[in-house]
Structure formats: C-alpha cells, structure tokens
C-alpha cells in the first residue's frame, strides 16, 4: 500500500515543448513550455489549477497530457509509465481514465447528431455496457451527477441546449468513463456567470464524492481561488509561481503574479485600481521569443542585470510548498 502511494497518478517530468524550427530551419522557434514539472497523486483527489494569460503555454500543457502533442524533451508518466511508450492496452486504459472537457461547448458537438450519440459512442468504444438497458442506466446515472435527466436531453440536438447545459453534458460524458483525472481546459470561460457556479460545483462534487482529480486550466484566478487546491502560474511557458491556491493568491511573491492579481478588477466600486502604474508598461515588449533570462524581464519592476543572464530557478519560500522563480527570493549563501 505504501508503495502504491509513491507512484503518482500523473507525473509531468521536466517537459519542454518547442514549436517551429524543424524542417524550416530558418523559421524562428517558440518555446511554448519550458522545463515544466508537476505531479498529481491518486488520493486524495485534488483540483490542480494551471493559470496564465494567452500564450503562457497552459493549453500546450493540456495537449501534451492528452497526447495530442509529443514533448520535445521530458516525459509524461501515467501510473509510472511514459505515455509515449505505452502498450495498446495501457493506452486504452489511459484514454479511459484521463478525460477532457474543452473550452467551447458549441464547437465540440457534431450538429447532425442528437445528444445521445455523444454517450453511445463512448459506451461503444470502451465496451462499457452489454445491452441497451445497461447503457441507458449508465447514461442516466452520469446525467444525474450533473443534475440532468435523460428524457430531457438525449433526444435533443445540440443547438436546442444552452452553453451551460452542453458543458454539463460534456462533464457527464467524461464521468461516464469513470476517469481518475479530467483535464478541463477553460471549462467555464464561455458560460454565463450565473451558470458558472453550477459547473464549478459539479467539479467539487466529482472530486469529493467520486475521487476524480482535475487539471483545471484557466486564465481566471477568481474561479481558481474558489475551488482550486494547488495552483501553478505560467508566464510565457515558464513556471513562475506555485503553491496552495489561497496562499499564492493572498500572498503573491513573483512580480508578475503580483501585477496579475492587482489587475483583476475588484467587483467593488470603492476599491478602484491604483492608476498610473500600469499605463507606463509597454505591453508590446512582452512579445515572446526571448530565449534566455527571465521571461518577465521587460515588464518587471524589480529587474536586475542578472535576470537577463539566466532564468531564475524555483526558490522555496517560507511557507512549506510555495515556490517562486525569481532572484528576489534567493537564499543568501553565507
């Protein structure tokens, strides 16, 4: 038992993904993700957030984990096995146990098929049921988890449902396969605010009642703050800060994360942004492409000459597992 505990469910080990180059040698390369590591234990289930703005590499990470992309270097291990080197049987298990929910609940449906088709395909591909009645019971159970009933939706076409309903059906489809991990790439960014809570609540219940972990990929720190356990914040492919979600957001350390959190509009008219500060930032300089040094250097308030020489490693901060990649937190060697 103790040994089982040590093999994480999913482990991302120093993964780097570079786009470009290759055949067209002269084309500039973009490092979408650099030396990123993360591990998720099977128990207890956790909601792990990966946050960052557009171009930070968070969707690249999701695509790597789901096997849509292959890492340029580094490994992704599922229950200790590299997903690039899995046997057919192992891959089938992996595909069943790691499910995905995507951002756009409009684009993932084939408009010609009824909703029931989504579930039928999953049941057929993985041979989950021996007969129709069994299949129907499974689907009904999955729909109940997300607060829906089969007779309400299975015979409908996607355009007859709202975005929130479609997204819940996607979660139900994922749940149907009894996954251990759901990779949710911006699952609520296209859903209305009043229905967002419902999807977040479903994620919490799946975690607590069904022991399903989530890799929650988002640009929205407020929802991560409400439901997330651990958070990793990326900036241009680099991990800049990681730790317990509440700890990181209440007490951000990296200058980028500080700026990010300061910039979230507070829903209280009495707490306005302190101005001036941000207008001076030339956001055009933030374009990716720099290969060396700290990616945040052009915009940083505390930049030093050495930040250009090499990217800072992750430094441990005072509280247990809170880390930031910034020379400001280097422990002086005496």
């Amino acid at each position, binding site marked *: 038992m103790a040994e089982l505990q040590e093999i994480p469910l999913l482990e991302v080990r120093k993964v780097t993904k570079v786009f470009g180059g290759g055949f067209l040698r002269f084309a500039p390369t973009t490092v979408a993700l650099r030396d990123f590591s993360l591990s998720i234990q099977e128990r207890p289930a956790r909601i792990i957030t990966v946050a960052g703005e557009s171009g930070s590499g968070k969707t690249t990470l999701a695509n790597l984990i789901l096997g849509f992309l292959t890492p340029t270097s580094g490994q992704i291990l599922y229950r200790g096995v590299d997903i690039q080197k899995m046997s057919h049987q192992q891959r089938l298990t992996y595909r069943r146990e790691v499910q995905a929910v995507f951002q756009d609940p409009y684009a993932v449906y084939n408009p010609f098929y009824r909703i029931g088709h989504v579930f039928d395909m999953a049941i057929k591909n993985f041979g989950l049921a021996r007969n129709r009645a069994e299949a129907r019971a499974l689907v009904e159970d999955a729909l109940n988890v997300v607060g829906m009933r089969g007779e309400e939706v299975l015979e409908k076409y996607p355009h007859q449902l709202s975005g929130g309903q479609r997204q819940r059906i996607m979660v139900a489809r994922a749940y149907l396969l009894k996954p251990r991990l759901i990779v949710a790439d911006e699952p609520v960014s296209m859903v209305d*605010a009043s229905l967002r809570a419902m999807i977040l609540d479903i994620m919490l219940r799946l975690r607590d009642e069904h022991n399903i972990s989530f890799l929650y990929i988002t640009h929205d720190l407020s929802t991560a703050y409400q439901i997330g356990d651990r958070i990793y914040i990326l900036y241009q492919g680099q991990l800049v800060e990681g730790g317990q979600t509440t700890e990181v957001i209440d007490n951000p350390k990296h200058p980028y994360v500080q700026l990010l959190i300061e910039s979230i509009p507070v829903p209280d008219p009495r707490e306005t942004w302190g101005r001036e500060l941000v207008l001076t930032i030339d956001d055009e300089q933030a374009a990716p492409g720099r290969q060396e040094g700290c990616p945040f250097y052009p915009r940083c308030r505390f930049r030093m000459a050495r930040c250009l020489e090499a990217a800072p490693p992750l430094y441990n901060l005072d509280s247990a597992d809170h880390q930031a990649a910034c020379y400001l937190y280097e422990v002086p060697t005496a």
Partner: protein
Amino acid sequence: MSFSQASENARASVSQEAAVLQVCDLRVYYDTPLGAVRAVDGVSFEVYQGEVLGLVGESGCGKTTAAMAVLRLVQPPGRIVGGQVFLNGVELTRLSEGELRRIRWRELALIPQGAMNSLNPVMKVRDQIADAIETHEGKQPARELKERILQLLATVGLPARVYNMYPHELSGGMKQRVCIAMAIALNPPLIIADEPTSALDVVVQRVVGETLLRVKEQLGVSIILIGHDMGLQAQLANRVAVMYAGHLVELAPVLAIFSAPLHPYTQLLIEAIPTIKQRKPLKLTEGLTHDLRNPPPGCIFHLRCPHAMDVCRSEKPPLREVRPGHFLACYLHA
C-alpha cells in the same frame, strides 16, 4: 485611499441635468419562422454628459442589440419595432439613412465587439485613422492631419512609432487602443463600447480600461460600456443598467448596484461574481431563461425569481424610481 476617495466623489458628482442620449421604450424583434424573438422589449434609459453607463446582463439578454438599435445598425432579421432615440435632442429614429450616416462616428462612435480584429490588415495605423477623419471632414492638410493623429495616439497612451505600423505588429491591447483612438478622432459626445476588453488578458484589460477612463476625463465624452464582467463595471462605470431577457430591470449608481442591489436578478448577478477576497460556498442558481419568443405574463423574471408573488405572475412591474436616481422594475420594493 485619497485617490479612491477622489474618484468616488468624482463618480457621484456626474451631473444629472444634461442627458446626451435618451432612449424611450425601444423595441427590437428578430423575426424567425416560429415567431418574433423579443430581444429588446421596451427599454428606456438616459446617458448623462461625461458618464460611463454600464449595460450588463448575461449573453442573449439584448444588451448589444439595444446598443446597435441606438445606432440603427440592427441587421435583418432583426428590426426596430418601436421606440425613440434622441441624441442631444435630435430624434435618430426619424432621420434618413444619409442624415444618419453623417451623425454616426461624428456624434456617436462605436467600438465594436472584438474591435481589434476589425482593423484593416493591409493599412497602416495612420492611414486607418486618417480615413475615419477624412471621410467625415473632407481632405485635411497633411501636416495638421499627422499632428492630430499623433495627438490621438498620445491620448490613448500609445508611443508615436505606432503611427507607421501595421496592425499585425501590435499586440491585442495596443490594437484595442488604436480602436479607441479612432473612436475619439472626431470628438463625439458619445461612444458605445461593446465588450472593449473581452478577449484581453487581465493586465492588458486594465490598461485598456484605464485608457477609456482617461479619455473620458480628458474629453468629457459619455460612454455606454456593454459587458458582462461585473468587476470591470465596478471599476469603470458611474451608473449601471441591468438587463434581463430584453428588459431593463434595474438602473442605479454603481455604488448602489454593488452595495445594495434591489432586484432579485441583480442580487443574483452580484452574488455570482467570483472573488479573490474570500473563499465562499458557490451560489447555485437553478433555471434557464424562458423562450424569448414567448415571454411569460407578468414579470419577466418571475420563473427564476426566489421571491415571486402572485402579482408578479400576472402583472408586469413598471420601471420606477424607488430612490433618487435608482430605478427598479420589481414589486418587492413598491
């Protein structure tokens, strides 16, 4: 502290006397084979000199349609069924298309949704802005035109080198600021900004939001700010109008909307805002908006309202001023 105090005072002191825009009982329907969708159904509001009026609501509530109807830019199958729109006393709804074209942009500018993608990719920034100016004001002396454009770029906080650049050389936030520069090129008294920051990262969103505020203060323009992000509204708006299913349900100064919302829908909207201030249980709301082709009798919100009374099911509550400057369509606070 002193800054937020000052801005709070400035926000409260928006003059009530000078209404730039008056919208009376505006109705816009979209014709479908199964009956007309009542996207905007009897909406009335005013925009005062030098204020930001926030227009909020979930997707499909008619906020963009209402704003487009002010400009008379509703596309078929949509049509303006009734109502009047006055801009500085001129009734826009009665003007001919030719007269209206002269007013658009000069008197009433639009920053459309996803404005940054509406720039012409093969025209330099300077030529696009010059185009907007010369279309309305005729050929300008080259030297004056250049100075004017550079002045506009400075107003929105862009460096002068942007003058000679193409849109693809700019980041999203910079493109969005070019669109703001174009909107203020002819010094219009009113700008309609439709989700001006929706596709931007939080830090850039803050830069663009602050640019809008700066433009408002320097030029004294009024802005209708359409959006669903309540945090952003709290930061930018002076007054907020809340729409639900084509109806205006509450309109009040921003402080009242956030600290003491009266309409149950507004309350729900405020409670649904995720914050990074405190971790709180998710607020779940059941129910979907009714079919807009077939609105229920009585109050538009009674099917989802937790406080619905008998009178709400039979009679439609009128929009009344329940406190000075606070308009509400609900029987709870009669």
